[in-house]
C-alpha cells in the first residue's frame, strides 16, 4: 500500500536531505549515535519555522552519502512541548522515503517502546537500535535484539553507540528500510491524540515486554549512592551552589584574560601587520585603512575573542549534561526557579550570564522546552556581566569614592531583581503555544556516566562554527557601520575619517539624542555617545567617554572622572550623584553588547530579539529616570 498523504511535497529546508531520522527518548545516547555515524560532517540547524536546534550530517553508508538528522529527545509524539512537536512534524513532513531510526534504551524499555509504537504508526519504515544491553545484563536483565525484533515486528539490532566499531550492524537493516515505501499513517501525527490510540500503544508495549525475560528486582546502583549525596535535602543545595560558583569563576577569572589577550592581539600585532601590509600595497593611510583596521579587523577581533569563552562554557555545560549532573541541578533548583516560572536548569545560563551574556544565551539550550529557552534567553541580558563592571567601577569611583563597593553591590542586587521581575513579566508576555504554562517537576534522572568527549567536541565545534557564521557577520557589519558613522564628517569641512568625533555623524546624532536623556539627569552628548557606543560593548562605552572628552582614559582615569563630574553636575541640576546612579542603572539594564544581540538573533529569532532589545531600552530608560528623580530628592 502506498501513501496518498506522502504525495505532498517533502519538507524543504534542512530536513529535505535527511534519509535517516534519529528518534528516541531524552538521554538515550541518540546524539552519541549521531556523532558516531556522521563524525565531523555535521552542522546545527533550526527546525523549519522554529528556533529548535537539530543536528544534520552525512553518514557514509555502504559507499553512499546518506543524510542523517538528529531530532530532539521525546517521550511521545503526542506533543506537549515544541521540541516534541518538532519531532512529530519532522516524522510527518520529512522526505517520504526517510527511515526512522529509533534508539531503544535497554534499561528503560517500556518507555522506549511507547515512543516506538507511535513512530511505527507514522507509516515510515522503522529500524530499532537497542542500546545499554550490557548495563541491563549487569543488572540481571538478559535482552536480545532478535526476540525483541520478533515481538515488535520491526528490524531491531543492538550496538553500543559509544563503540563505533559495532555500528556496522545498522547498515543492512537501514539499507533495506531505505528501499521500503512509507505506508499511510494510522494516526494523524500532529495534533491531539485520542485515548483509544494511547490505550492501544500501551497495550502493544505490554504485549512486547511480556514476551521478554522479566527484570530482576532493582538493586542499589552507584548512581543511587551518588544521588544520596547530590540530591540530599541539605547537602544537595551547597553542592549545587559550589558547582554554580565554579561555573561563574570559569566565565570570569579563567576566561577574562583569554578574551582580553585575543582582543589586544587583534588590536596590536595583527592590526600593525595589516597596516604595514596595506602600506606595502600602496593603499595604506586614510579612510580605507581606518575601515579595515577600526571596522572590519576590530569586528573580527571581537568575534574571535569570544571563541575561547564559548568553548570553555560549552565544555563545562557539556560535561555537566553528559555526566548526568544537569538533571540533578534541575531537581535541586526547581523550587527557586519555579517562582519565576522557569525550570531549575535555568540557573545555569543565568549564572553564566553574570560572567558573559554571549555564551549564556547559547547555554539556554540546556533547557528542555522552547518556551523556557525563550524566556531564559530574554532574561539573560539583565544579568550584570563582567563588562558592565568597568562602567560601574569608573562611575562609582568618581561619584561615590567612599562607598563604591556598596553601590556596585546594589547594582548586582538590582540585576537579580530585574531577572526575577522580568521572569514574572515574560511569563505573561510569551505565548504558551500549547505548552503547559507552569510545569510540575517530573524528571527521569539519567545514570551518572563519563561524558563522551568525542561527542562533546563535535557539538562544541559545530556551535562555534555556527557562532562565527551567524553572529560573526552581524558583529562585523555593525562595527563597520559604527566606524562609518564616526568617520563621516557632517560639519566643519573635515575629510572622511579625519573628523573629530563631535563633528562626525555619530557626534551630531548623539547631540540630537541627548535631550531624551534629560529626565535621567544625563542630557549631554558625551553621555549619549558613550551609551550608544555601549551598545557595541560596555567596555567600549568607557573608551568612548575618553574619546569624546579627548582625555586619556587609561591610567587612574582622574581626568576623565573630573570631566564626568563637571558634566553631570550641569545636566542633573546639581545632583550629580543621582545622575551617576541613573547612568549605572541604565548601563545595567540596556542591551549588553552587539555580540549578545547577534547571539539572541541566533537562538531566539529576529522577532523576539527585536522585542527583547526594545524592552531593555524601555526598562533602562524608565528605571534610570525613576532612580534619578527619586535619588535627587534624597
Amino acid at each position, binding site marked *: 500500500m502506498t501513501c496518498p498523504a506522502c504525495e505532498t511535497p517533502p519538507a524543504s529546508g534542512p530536513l529535505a536531505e535527511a534519509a535517516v531520522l534519529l528518534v528516541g527518548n531524552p538521554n538515550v545516547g541518540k546524539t552519541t549515535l549521531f556523532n558516531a555515524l556522521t563524525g565531523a560532517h555535521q552542522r546545527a540547524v533550526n527546525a523549519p519555522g522554529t528556533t529548535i536546534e537539530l543536528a544534520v550530517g552525512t553518514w557514509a553508508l555502504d559507499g553512499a552519502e546518506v543524510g542523517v538528522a538528529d531530532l530532539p529527545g521525546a517521550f511521545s509524539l503526542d506533543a506537549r512541548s515544541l521540541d516534541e512537536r518538532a519531532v512529530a512534524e519532522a516524522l510527518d513532513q520529512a522526505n517520504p522515503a526517510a527511515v526512522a531510526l529509533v534508539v531503544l534504551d535497554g*534499561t*528503560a524499555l*517500556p518507555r522506549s517502546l*511507547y515512543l516506538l509504537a507511535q513512530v511505527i504508526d507514522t507509516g515510515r519504515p522503522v529500524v530499532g537500535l537497542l542500546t545499554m544491553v550490557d548495563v*541491563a545484563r549487569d543488572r540481571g536483565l538478559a535482552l536480545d535484539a532478535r526476540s525483541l525484533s520478533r515481538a515488535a515486528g520491526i528490524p531491531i539490532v543492538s550496538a553500543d553507540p559509544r563503540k563505533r566499531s559495532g555500528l556496522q550492524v545498522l547498515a543492512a537493516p537501514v539499507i533495506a528500510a531505505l528501499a521500503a515505501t512509507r505506508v499511510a499513517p494510522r494516526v494523524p501525527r500532529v495534533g491531539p491524540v485520542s485515548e483509544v490510540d494511547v490505550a492501544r500503544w*500501551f497495550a502493544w508495549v505490554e504485549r512486547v515486554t511480556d514476551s521478554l525475560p522479566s527484570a530482576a528486582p532493582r538493586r542499589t546502583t552507584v548512581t543511587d549512592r551518588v*544521588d544520596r549525596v547530590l540530591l540530599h535535602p541539605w547537602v544537595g543545595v551547597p553542592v549545587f551552589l559550589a558547582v554554580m560558583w565554579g561555573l561563574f569563576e570559569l566565565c570570569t577569572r579563567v576566561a577574562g584574560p583569554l578574551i582580553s589577550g585575543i582582543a589586544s592581539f587583534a588590536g596590536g600585532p595583527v592590526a600593525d601587520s595589516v597596516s604595514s601590509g596595506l602600506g606595502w600595497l600602496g593603499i595604506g593611510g586614510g579612510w580605507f585603512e581606518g575601515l579595515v583596521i577600526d571596522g572590519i579587523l576590530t569586528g573580527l577581533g571581537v568575534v574571535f575573542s569570544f571563541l575561547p569563552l564559548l568553548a570553555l562554557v560549552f565544555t563545562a555545560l557539556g560535561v555537566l549534561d553528559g555526566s548526568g549532573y544537569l538533571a540533578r541541578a534541575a531537581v535541586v533548583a526547581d523550587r527557586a526557579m519555579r517562582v519565576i516560572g522557569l525550570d531549575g536548569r535555568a540557573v545555569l545560563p543565568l549564572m553564566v550570564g553574570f560572567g558573559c551574556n554571549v555564551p549564556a544565551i547559547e547555554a539556554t539550550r540546556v533547557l528542555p522546552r522552547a518556551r523556557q529557552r525563550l524566556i531564559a534567553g530574554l532574561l539573560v541580558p539583565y544579568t550584570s556581566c563582567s563588562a558592565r563592571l568597568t562602567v560601574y567601577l569608573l562611575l562609582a569611583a568618581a561619584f561615590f569614592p567612599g562607598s563604591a563597593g556598596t553601590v556596585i553591590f546594589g547594582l548586582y542586587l538590582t540585576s537579580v531583581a530585574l531577572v526575577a521581575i522580568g521572569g514574572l513579566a515574560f511569563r505573561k508576555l510569551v505565548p504558551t503555544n500549547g505548552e503547559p504554562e507552569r510545569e510540575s517537576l517530573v524528571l*527521569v534522572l539519567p545514570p551518572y556516566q563519563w561524558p563522551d568527549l568525542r561527542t562533546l567536541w563535535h557539538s562544541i565545534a559545530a556551535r562555534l562554527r555556527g557562532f562565527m557564521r551567524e553572529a560573526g557577520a552581524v558583529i562585523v557589519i555593525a562595527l563597520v557601520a559604527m566606524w562609518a558613522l564616526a568617520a563621516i564628517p557632517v560639519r566643519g569641512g573635515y575629510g572622511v575619517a579625519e573628523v573629530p568625533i563631535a563633528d562626525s555623524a555619530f557626534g551630531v546624532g548623539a547631540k540630537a539624542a541627548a535631550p531624551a536623556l534629560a529626565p535621567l539627569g544625563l542630557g549631554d552628548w558625551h553621555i549619549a555617545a558613550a551609551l550608544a557606543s555601549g551598545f557595541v560593548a560596555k567596555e567600549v562605552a568607557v573608551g568612548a567617554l575618553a574619546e569624546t572628552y579627548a582625555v586619556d582614559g587609561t591610567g587612574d582615569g582622574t581626568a576623565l572622572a573630573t570631566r564626568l563630574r563637571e558634566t553631570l553636575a550641569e545636566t542633573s541640576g546639581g545632583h550629580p550623584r543621582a545622575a551617576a546612579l541613573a547612568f549605572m542603572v541604565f548601563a545595567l539594564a540596556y542591551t549588553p553588547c552587539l555580540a549578545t544581540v547577534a547571539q539572541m538573533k541566533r537562538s531566539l529569532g529576529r522577532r523576539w530579539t527585536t522585542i527583547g532589545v526594545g524592552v531593555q531600552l524601555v526598562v533602562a530608560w524608565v528605571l534610570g529616570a525613576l532612580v534619578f528623580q527619586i535619588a535627587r530628592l534624597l
Partner: protein
Amino acid sequence: MHLAEVSPGREVVIGALHGTPDASSRLREIGLRPGALIRVVQRSTFGAIIVAHGFSSVALDRDTARSITVAVP
C-alpha cells in the same frame, strides 16, 4: 495514601493519577502508570522525592507526589 507520604525504602503500587491531564500523560509515558510497582528511594530538596521504577530513577516535586495515590502491594 499518596506518594508524598511514603517513607524512603518502601515499595508501593500506583493507584490513580490526579494531576492535570498533561501531567498525568507525562507520568504515564515515562512509565508511572496505575498498577506500576515503584520504590521511594529518597527525599530530596524542598520536598521533592526520588522514586525508582524498573531500572530508572524519576524525580517528582512534592505537589506531583501528592497527586499520585498509592497502595501497599
